[in-house]
């Protein structure tokens, strides 16, 4: 299941972090997301490592930590989406699909004239949309 999704702005400032666990592990998740930025930077700055998927928005799995897997997605506008999941075998297709939907949700959110660019996303509709996307994660292509 997806443990946490996050949007991080182009100045590496958290725009939206939402954990989907009952446990009170917000802090840990914050740390995980925060560290994942390092990996993102690394991937982007020396593309030789990222190899074929050069300049693709989807960065694939960034790094495993404890029993989590962290996936990353970097938009053209240097906004990062981070996905933390506990699933052992995650289909890349699923993750890609997830990020695609998530991205569109994000775009709609920031197109809201009341959203201040660079500030936290507080839109409730966005949160709802995200939670539905998260819920449907995996089923989309599994079905």
């Amino acid at each position, binding site marked *: 299941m997806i443990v946490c999704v996050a949007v991080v702005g182009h100045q*590496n*400032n*958290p725009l939206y972090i939402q954990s989907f666990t009952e446990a009170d592990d*917000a*802090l840990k998740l*914050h*740390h995980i997301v*925060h*560290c994942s*930025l*390092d990996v993102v*930077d*690394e991937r982007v*700055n020396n593309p030789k490592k990222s190899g074929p998927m050069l300049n693709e928005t989807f960065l694939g799995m960034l790094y495993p930590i404890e029993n989590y897997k962290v996936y990353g997605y970097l938009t053209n506008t240097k906004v990062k989406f981070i996905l933390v999941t506990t699933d052992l075998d995650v289909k890349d297709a699923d993750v890609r699909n997830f990020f695609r939907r998530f991205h569109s949700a994000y775009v709609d959110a920031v197109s809201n004239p009341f959203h201040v660019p660079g500030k936290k996303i507080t839109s409730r509709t966005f949160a709802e949309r995200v939670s539905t996307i998260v819920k449907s994660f995996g089923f989309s292509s599994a079905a």
Partner: protein
Amino acid sequence: MDPAMTPLGKMLLEEITPVVMVISTPAVEETCLKNGLSFLQMLTPFCSFNNIDVPVRTASDQPYRIHKFKLRLFYGSDVKKPNLKVAEQQLKQVITDSGEKVFSELCLDVPGFNHEVASSEDRDTPSWFQFFNKELVRVASFSDHEAFDHPVACLLAVSSKDEHPISRFVDLFNTNKLPSLLKDGSMDPKILKHYLLVHDNQDGPADRASKILTEMRNTFGTSDSLLLSVNSSPDVPIKHQDNPWASQIYNVPPNQDLGCFLNIDDINEIKDLMQDLSSKHIIPNMEQKIRLLNQQVSATRKGFKNQIKNLWWRKGKEDGVDSLNGPTYNFNSIESQIRVLGDYAFMLRDYELALSNYRLISTDYKIDKAWKRYAGVQEMMGLTYFMLDQSKKEAEYCMENAFNTYLKLGLLGQQNATRCGLWWIEMLKARDLYKEAATVYFRICGEDILHSAVMLEQASYCYLLSKPSMSRKYGFHLVLSGEQYKKCDQIKHAIRTYRSALSVFRGTTWSYINDHVHFHIGQWYAALDMYDVAVKHMMEILACSHQSKTTQELFLSDFLQVVEKTGRTFEVTKLQLPVINISSLKVIFEDHRTFGSSSVATNTKEALWRSLEEDMIPSFTAAKTNWLELQSKLISKKHTLSNVCVAGEAVKVNIEFINPLQITIPVSGVTLICEYSTSTDELTSDEKELSVKTNNEVDHFRDMSSYNSSFLVSEVDFSLGGGETTMVQLSVTPKEVGTLEILGVRWKLSGTIVGFHNFELSHPKKNIVNGRRKAKRPPNEKFKFMVIKSIPKIQGSVHSLPGKAYAGDLRKLMLELKNPSEFPVKNLKMKINHPRFLIIGNQENVKLEFPGCLTKTIGSVQTGANANPNLMSETIFSFPVDTSIQGETPLSWPLWFRAAVPGDISLYMSIYYEIEDISSVIRYRTLRLHYNVQVLPSLDVSFQISPSRLRIQDFLVQLDVVNKTSSESFQVYQLSSIGQHWEISLLQPPDTIFPSQTLMAGQAISCFFTLKNSRRLSTLENNISTMPVGSDVLLVPQCSQDLVYNSNNVPLVNFHHYERLQQKALHEDLGDLNTVDFVLISRPLNNSINPGLSDPPHVMSHHACHLSTASTGPISWLVDGPQTLHHDFSASFCEINLKMHLYNSSETTAFVHIDTIDLDSSGGHINSVNALPSATPDNQVGWHDVTPVNELKVSSNAIETQPGKALLLESVSPYIWSATSSTNIHLEPMSPAEVPLQICVFSPGTYDLSNYFLNWKLPSKGLGDSDETRQHSGKCQGYKYYLTVLQSP
């Protein structure tokens, strides 16, 4: 680069070197103990040789030289696996000590903890890591599965004091005392031995020693027997600068200086001893052993045949394999010999040989499943590859392989795994693969928390050093290790790590992490009783609005606990709780303007007041020769520098406190911090200002907050609920003349911690209420006040002013002025912004009761009093000269209030007064009162006036009254017409209008009056506005107690005056002679639900002004004649005489011209002429001077004739106008006239005699005239007038 130069290389050259086992007698030890050293310690510094030159040959006779060499000395008793328990303790100790050490130096820069950054000083990893790692490696030493810890030689030391030294030598080295390694056969007990005789020169001359030596030589052989004589220095202890022992021995007793009895010769002697021990004996010995072993190995194992054999043989003893430790090999087994060969070669830097042997043996071990040995060999292979500096990949592969294998062994391989890991890490570091190194660190940290903590910390540094540096992971791992440290309460380490981590997260918006870090640092500092720092850190997270409620509570409670622990009330400048909304800051003070209430000061606009007062207060600039000269000088001088306030009068500050949290926080003791200086001179106080800025403001505030006699500060307590915001008003009251400055605000959070906010330090945009010098003044000046000695201040209030009133409500109010001080004030003036709503009465009015004073009975008295209303139109009302207020007796003055129009009305009144005594800076003051009144709609009154058809100069007035209220019901009491020449009278008796005399809510009535124009020419001269006579009509049935209100009385007349002024704007009036004003007086009935309005008796007056009667222009006319008549048409056609009454109501002579139009076709030509009369100027006499204006007008009027023409077509049976078809008359102003008319009727019927036009024209006053709007001429169709003619029988 040379691998030997890398840290790893150095480490290996240190660690993997030949071991010399030392066995000594107690006597030897005590000899050395004189120097505070053990025998071993005494020798150790001289065991590493950096500049020797020993020729060596490889197994294949390749000569090479060894320049650097090192021996490791161990007591025989120590040559064994270290005890884990002890080792643990040792390591723990190391950590704790280093923790203390590092922390102590960390604490020095505690205050500046928020200045440090993730810069170089973070980057160099703490030095104690190396030491710790070394210790860690040492734990794994003397394992039987590897040979480089096996002693290559044994040094037997006997003192010359011992008796039978030879025998001592012998039994020093007998098997039962030997370490287990040698006994259990895992290594070769036949090792090189050296026999050292130690002689203490303090015991006397060395002759005995030399005797023994010769004896030794005989027994053990010359080469292996040595003599060392020490302590040869005289009894006076000597101090060695750069003491060779200091470096290696840690816990040195301070008074003890090491090696005090060893003089330079002794030291040299030791040096030489060790040197030729190594170079002459050990190295050659090893070299020789290498050859030997090499031959054996190649004999048994080299060559194809041996390989096969070996393989087959191993297969054979497959079954014999026991535990995972694999079979046990004793020293003469070929395997361990190969290993020994490898290790020896390694130690003699013959890495190729070493490598080949390791390769050889590793496969064997692998097949034998002797995993530990296999791992060990792999490890060595890795290291050898590294030292050879070839095929990095191989090296790393080997290390990893070894590491994993060790790990597989579990507890058995634990230490080795750690050691292997550390070496591996070093290897990676040497190749700048810091990230990988970090991961290895991560893998090392086993279940032992403390170790893992250290490893994690080292890992974090690796992340920092990796390219590109991964600061976030650095932070994360620091936090992790910090937690681990905390678990095994190494708090100081924990704090250290967290604080380093802080440098990563500070300034970012990752508030969760930031809070967590700060919070724990705070807690831990508190645990170390370093509360000040703890508080500092905790304060960072107080205003954590993003956190959950519970977290906020936790933070706050812990914070408060910490603060309590400090014992004193903690005082801090930047306390974030509650948040102060500095932009909400407002300073209210009263210099020469005083306010009825503070709300007045805050909520009203200065500009508005100024405009209201401008012609009341003497302006500085305009002041020429009067006493104001002085004042203007005084004030302008001081004012430019600071505000003026009066001693004994409070200066108020409104400021907003915001609670960002979801939990309620109690705030108490909110006071202003003020500074008072007796000097009114600005310069000195400015200097003081500067000094304030410089010194630490907390202290400054502390003494400021201490009680000060020269001013008084108010104190406010409140508690802020979650997310609440409250506006607090603080006040400071100066008591003495001087300079008062408001520096800031202090408050107490939940009774324990005191917060300060300095107004100056943060430069907010303050909106000082009196905006006079807002722009000019630098911010700090806004809080500086020149206190002048106390002067009278009038307090005033208006009594019985309703908050709500219905439109038209008329009341008498009392303005009460008090002057508490003993000084009298004089020359009172007053001004009100809405004379339409509020009128200042007269002294006389005080007595009269209301609304009785309005009634006619006493009406005649006041008519004089109200003089002429336009006196008080816009100008100032000045109280009588003799009025001076002083002491208790208040001055009360009547005001008349009338709710003129519905809406929210705000009434501003400003009262000006002068102070008697000349000396004070302020000579006059103004009292500003402000009230809001909500006026509700009550009666909606509208009038409609139409000229009556019956009599000329009579008008029909329709009055429509609608009760707009929801609940109230009114009694429409009386209607008065104002204006000098109007008489109004009822058309039908009142009770028919109002059967029930009330007008219910929402009810509408309309009633009719006749309005008679009673003006005569005589009344023409006197002005309208002077003495408006009027006529009143009671709308209620006449009864005795009902009084008639006199609309000429104060205040009705005044209000009416203002109504006129007001409504003039609306109606542009034509011919104001013909306009009429009405006043409708009504009374609310007392069944009111609204208590605010129920107090009886009220009078409400509705004024309607400038109602125009002249609907038809100045000329009014009436056709008079019979309505029906009988005529015998058989006899003749009928002639009927009619009269037209004309009246000219304008004040100029009017030309009137009447055209009659016949209806039959024969009269067509007249029509054509008269349709557009102006088109044919030669038509009639009166139409010569037709101005373009008129022409336009006429032609426009001609359109009005359309109905007339229409009427022709569907007209009834024709009649003709006999007599003159058109008449001209000059109508004198204000005069009637009569025009005879005649028609002829040819058949019975009913005729409409409206077929005539009446052209009227006033002499135009030329184009540029003021009242261009006014009509100069017109053309009107005649009124309908029906005449019925019957055939007479």
